[in-house]
Every structure is written in structure tokens, then in C-alpha cells.
């Protein structure tokens, strides 16, 4: 894992001291809320429905055991005993007190964490593949590149007041497990025909009220020009992004309005200029960073056998573990989606347990996934039964990865002040009703947002649910056919919305159409793509 150097630590410590002073002045009444709000937001502190909410960045989703323990301690000491893992691989606390915040940030700084750039119109936490460094299908570990970009984008003075927020994702495999094409910049590390490693740039994707899939604007940027190319992409956006209209201010609108070809032309022009300015950090810096992401010392000669005599355990192994690059190992996914539970929530005790298991079984590393689960990336097959036994005992053993119960849900109207409708109860009811049919339904990704901002990725769900406000009453639209994987697509709205009970019935009906129409081996999404939306509409609206 990356270790802060003295500069990283000094910057974060200085920021804590600065915020402590700002909070003091706010509490003493020396600054107004209007003056204070941008300052607190720069430190991840929002005012939400019931209290302050603190969003803590988890760079590319990677955490050590000590960091996970620290997150659990914060939940215990300063919040109400739990945290919420988000689709941006971060964690949010819902019950934070203003006066505690400087102490929380100081506790985070001790484990090399912070909440900087988790809000506001800046470059946000950089996300990545949650199996990075573990999966056999990657070209190379993408995280050193994500870390390089984190360092470049942290406090970058030119990009702290962009037209709108900016989200970057870096992956290094054909398989997309990070919704790469739905980011402002999606980067895929690739190899060209001459065997050199570089980066393909996808720019102008996003969700929110105007979802867009990012077009590839450059299939190969040499690695020693990665930062310069990012800078060029940002500069063109910073100059021409629609500051006049918040709803048109994301880069996706600029790329769409200019056209990808014209945007690319402008980026290339800026890039040519920037190359003369020599802004790229030396490759030695990338190499220095890369040493922190070296593979752990995997044991060799391990057996691939797993004792499957316990059927519950065998089911969990089949559903929640994925192949690893090292023989005898797997990546194990800890589901934060018990049937009927709140997606993404973990109690302090559960976080402490995950931290212990991280240390014991996964070379001191775990990952937060954008689907609101936790991954132990490097687990010996021989340890799986012991791991599962501990998880089961703590309510973390649900065997439902990418199944109907593995629902993404944003906080919605239970916590979020922007929400139109609650998301969590809908997720709970769908999970309760349909989890018993999980095996029969196979891979089926349900994603729920409580408003058009799409924090719950509803556009990208095989089945998506969007909460809307219908004359003061919660109402839910159903979307079908979205995906955020390699075959990224945007879901289509089926028709008029439903009330809370109705949307659960509607989701069930959609699954029945699938079961009736599927051919061998087809997932829900495959069937939908083959037969189209009409059979579903007929079943829903008759």
C-alpha cells in the first residue's frame, strides 16, 4: 500500500489545523454559515437531513487493517456506531457533530486518511478496480497510476474551482468493474501493438440527470505523458465548461455539445502546448509509487482444493469468491447486503472484524467496491472456511455477489437532503421478496437512487429504480437494460411510475418476464437485450 511521505503528511496535518481554526471561528460566530459552508465542504462536511455528514475519501478503494480499525473507531466514538460505504468507494458518517470534526480529521490523518476534495467542484477521489493487483485479467496494477493522479490532483490550484465536480477512474483490464465509462475521465491502461504500455482516455461520461457514456478520445497516451494529457483534458473543460448553468456544467455536456471530435482536437492542441511546458512528473516518481503496490509475498505450492462438504459454505464460495492471479488464492467479497438489510451500512463491530480478517487473511489489505461491498483481495483457499465462519457469525456471510440481493442504494430520503424519495426501504423490500430466488435469477444488478442525481447508479442497473416526487408523495420509476460493465449501456424508463409497494411488484414482474423468456445461459440483461422492452411493458402495464 502507498505510504505517505513527509509532504503528504505535512499537507494533511496542516489542513486539519486550518479546519480546526475555521470551526472555532464558526462556533464563536466570527464567520457566517455562508462564509463557512465552502470551507466545511472542502473538508467533506455536509449538512444533511438529520445532522452533519462527513464523507471520508478511500483512495481507489484500498484500505489497510489499521485504516479500517480507525474508520470503525470514528463510527463508535463520534457517530452512532456505523458507517455507510458508497458507490464512490468512500465512507460516509451520518451523525457528526461540528465540534468533533477537527478531532475526527486528526484521527484520520494518523492513519494517512482525510476528507479533502470529497465535495465541491474539484477533482474527487479517484476510483479503480476493486480487484486491482489480485485479478489475473489485468495488464498491470492500475493503482500506481491512480495514486500518481491523486497526487497531481490534490490541491492542484488550477482545478479547485472547476465548473462542476470531476470524477476520474483508472482500470487496467478489458473487464470493467468500476463503471469506468461513466466517469468524467475514464482511463484504461492498455498495451499497444509494439507492446508498450499506455493509457486509453474515455472522456465525458457520467450519470446524474443527463447520463452519458464516455467516448474514447485517445486510444493510446504514452505513460510518460499521462498527467500532461489529463491536464489538457481538464484545461479545455475548465475554460469552456458551462459555468452559466449548474445542470449543464459537467464535462459530459461540453463533450456532447462540442462533439467528441472537436473536444479532442482542442485537447490535442492544449496537449501539444503543455508538452513544451515540461509538467509531467519524472517516471522515477511513478516507479517510486509503484514499489508500494508490489504484489505481496504469495506462498507457492498451495493446493487449489476446497472442502465443500458444508453446502452453505460451498454456496458462498461459488458466489462470493473470484479467481486470483496466484495459484491457491482467491479474492473474497464480503457482502454488506444481508437480506432485508441496509445496503452499504456496516457497524463499528463489523468494521473492526473486517479489519482483523484483513490482517489475518489478506496481507493487511481490503477494498471498498463501488457496489458497496468489501473485498479481501488475497485470501488463501485453505483459509476460506475459517474466514466464512467468522463472517457468518457477524451477519456478513450473505452469498449474493451480483445477485438480486446485492442491491446498490443511495441514502435517499432517509438521510439525504436532496432526495425525492426513500431508496433504502425499496432495496430492503426487493431484497426480502426476491432473495429466496437468488440462485434461479442468477446475475441481476439492481440499482436505486432517491433522485435524479443518480448516486445509486440507477441508469446502469440491469434493473434501475429512480425515486421521484409526485405532488409530495414518493413515486418510483423503473428502468431496464442498464449496465456499467464492459458492455456499458443506459437503462430505459418503462413508463409511468409506481408507489412503494408497486415498485417492488414491478421488479418482481420484470424478473418473471425474464424467467419465462430466457434461453439457456442468458442473464436478465441478455434476455432484455434480445427481446427488448415491450414484453416487460406489457407485463407491467397490461
Amino acid at each position, binding site marked *: 500500500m502507498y505510504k505517505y511521505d513527509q509532504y503528504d503528511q505535512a499537507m494533511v496535518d496542516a489542513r486539519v489545523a486550518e479546519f480546526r481554526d475555521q470551526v472555532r471561528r464558526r462556533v464563536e460566530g466570527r464567520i457566517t454559515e455562508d462564509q463557512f459552508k465552502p470551507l466545511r465542504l472542502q473538508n467533506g462536511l455536509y*449538512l444533511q437531513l438529520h*445532522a452533519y455528514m462527513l464523507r471520508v475519501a478511500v483512495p481507489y478503494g484500498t484500505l489497510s487493517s489499521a485504516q479500517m480499525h480507525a474508520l470503525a473507531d470514528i463510527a463508535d466514538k463520534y457517530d452512532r456506531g456505523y458507517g455507510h460505504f458508497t458507490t464512490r468507494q468512500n465512507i460516509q458518517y451520518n451523525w457528526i457533530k461540528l465540534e468533533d470534526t477537527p478531532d475526527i480529521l486528526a484521527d484520520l490523518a494518523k492513519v494517512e486518511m482525510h476528507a479533502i476534495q470529497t465535495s465541491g467542484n474539484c477533482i474527487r477521489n479517484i476510483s479503480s478496480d476493486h480487484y486491482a493487483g489480485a485479478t489475473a485479467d489485468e495488464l498491470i496494477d492500475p493503482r500506481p497510476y491512480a495514486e500518481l493522479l491523486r497526487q497531481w490532483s490534490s490541491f492542484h490550484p488550477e482545478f479547485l474551482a472547476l465548473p462542476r465536480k470531476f470524477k476520474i477512474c483508472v482500470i487496467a483490464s478489458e473487464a470493467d468493474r468500476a463503471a469506468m465509462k461513466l466517469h468524467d475521465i475514464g482511463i484504461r491502461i492498455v498495451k499497444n501493438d509494439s507492446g508498450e504500455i499506455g493509457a486509453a482516455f474515455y472522456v465525458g461520461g457520467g450519470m446524474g440527470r443527463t447520463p452519458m457514456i464516455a467516448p474514447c478520445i485517445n486510444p493510446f497516451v504514452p505513460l510518460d505523458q499521462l498527467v500532461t494529457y489529463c491536464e489538457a483534458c481538464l484545461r479545455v473543460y475548465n475554460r469552456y465548461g458551462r459555468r452559466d448553468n449548474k445542470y449543464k456544467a459537467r464535462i459530459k455536456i461540453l463533450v456532447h455539445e462540442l462533439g467528441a471530435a472537436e473536444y479532442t482536437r482542442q485537447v490535442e492542441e492544449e496537449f501539444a502546448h503543455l508538452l513544451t511546458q515540461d509538467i509531467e512528473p519524472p517516471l522515477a516518481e511513478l516507479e517510486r509509487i509503484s514499489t508500494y503496490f508490489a504484489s505481496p509475498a504469495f506462498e507457492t505450492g498451495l493446493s487449489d482444493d476446497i472442502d465443500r462438504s458444508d453446502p452453505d459454505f460451498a454456496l458462498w464460495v461459488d458466489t462470493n469468491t473470484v479467481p486470483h492471479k496466484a495459484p491457491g488464492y482467491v479474492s473474497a467479497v464480503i457482502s454488506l447486503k444481508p437480506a432485508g438489510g441496509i445496503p452499504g451500512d456496516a457497524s463499528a463491530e463489523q468494521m473492526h472484524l473486517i479489519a482483523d480478517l484483513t490482517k489475518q487473511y489478506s496481507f493487511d489489505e481490503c477494498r471498498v467496491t463501488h457496489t458497496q461491498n468489501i473485498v479481501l483481495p488475497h485470501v488463501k483457499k485453505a483459509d476460506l472456511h475459517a474466514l466464512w465462519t467468522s463472517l457468518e457469525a457477524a451477519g456478513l456471510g450473505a452469498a449474493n455477489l451480483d445477485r438480486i440481493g446485492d442491491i446498490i442504494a443511495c441514502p435517499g430520503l432517509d438521510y439525504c437532503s436532496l432526495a425525492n424519495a426513500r431508496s*433504502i426501504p425499496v432495496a430492503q423490500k426487493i431484497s426480502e421478496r426476491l432473495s429466496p430466488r437468488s440462485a434461479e435469477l442468477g446475475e441481476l444488478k439492481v440499482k436505486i437512487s432517491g433522485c435524479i442525481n443518480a448516486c445509486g447508479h440507477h441508469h446502469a442497473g440491469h434493473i434501475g429504480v429512480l425515486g421521484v416526487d409526485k405532488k409530495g408523495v414518493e413515486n418510483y420509476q423503473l428502468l431496464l437494460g442498464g449496465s456499467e460493465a464492459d458492455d456499458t449501456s443506459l437503462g430505459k424508463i418503462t413508463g409511468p411510475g409506481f408507489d412503494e409497494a408497486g415498485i417492488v411488484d414491478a421488479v418482481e414482474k420484470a424478473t418473471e418476464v425474464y424467467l419465462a423468456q430466457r434461453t439457456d445461459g442468458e442473464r436478465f440483461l441478455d434476455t432484455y437485450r434480445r427481446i427488448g422492452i415491450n414484453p416487460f411493458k406489457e407485463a407491467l402495464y397490461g
Partner: protein
Amino acid sequence: MKIVTGNDLKTGAVTWWTGSDWSIHVDDAVDAGDQAETIAAREEAARNVNSPYVIEAVTDADGKVRPAHIKDRIRALGPTVRPDLTLKPADPTAGNWVI
């Protein structure tokens, strides 16, 4: 009926204007009538409340003041999915009027 709500500056807790002070219990809220905006501005300036705003409210059958919109009803109670974290964790009926 118009009531005034905001958050406590230090704790972030949801608060309601009672006619003389701020309470975390919506039952204490009073009709501020056409003085609502003035009260909000004065109380914010005096730092008794953070980010106050005026909302519509109704009186229910028992004469209790209830925010008209679901968002403020949920603010008054707490998260509907965690009764244990609401203001009345011991009362299973506490949320009945919210949804």
C-alpha cells in the same frame, strides 16, 4: 400554518421554533404565521440556529403540529429505516404519521 426549522450549529440536530426558543421535538413547534421569515432571519443572526427555513405545516387529529412535506416529516423523526436512531426509539408507533 407556517413553522420554522433549522439545525443546531454545534450538533447539527434538527430543531423547531417553539415561540421562544428551539426544540428538537416537532411537537413543540408553533405556528409562526407571517412572522416566520423575520424570526428565521433574527434567530440566525443571533446564532441560535443554523440555516433556518420556513415550511408549511398542518395540525393532526390530536392537535399536533406536523410538517406538510415528507422530507421534513422524516427530519422530525429520524431515518425511517433505523427506528433505533429516531427521537423515540422505544415507541414502535412513533413513525406512523411520517409516511
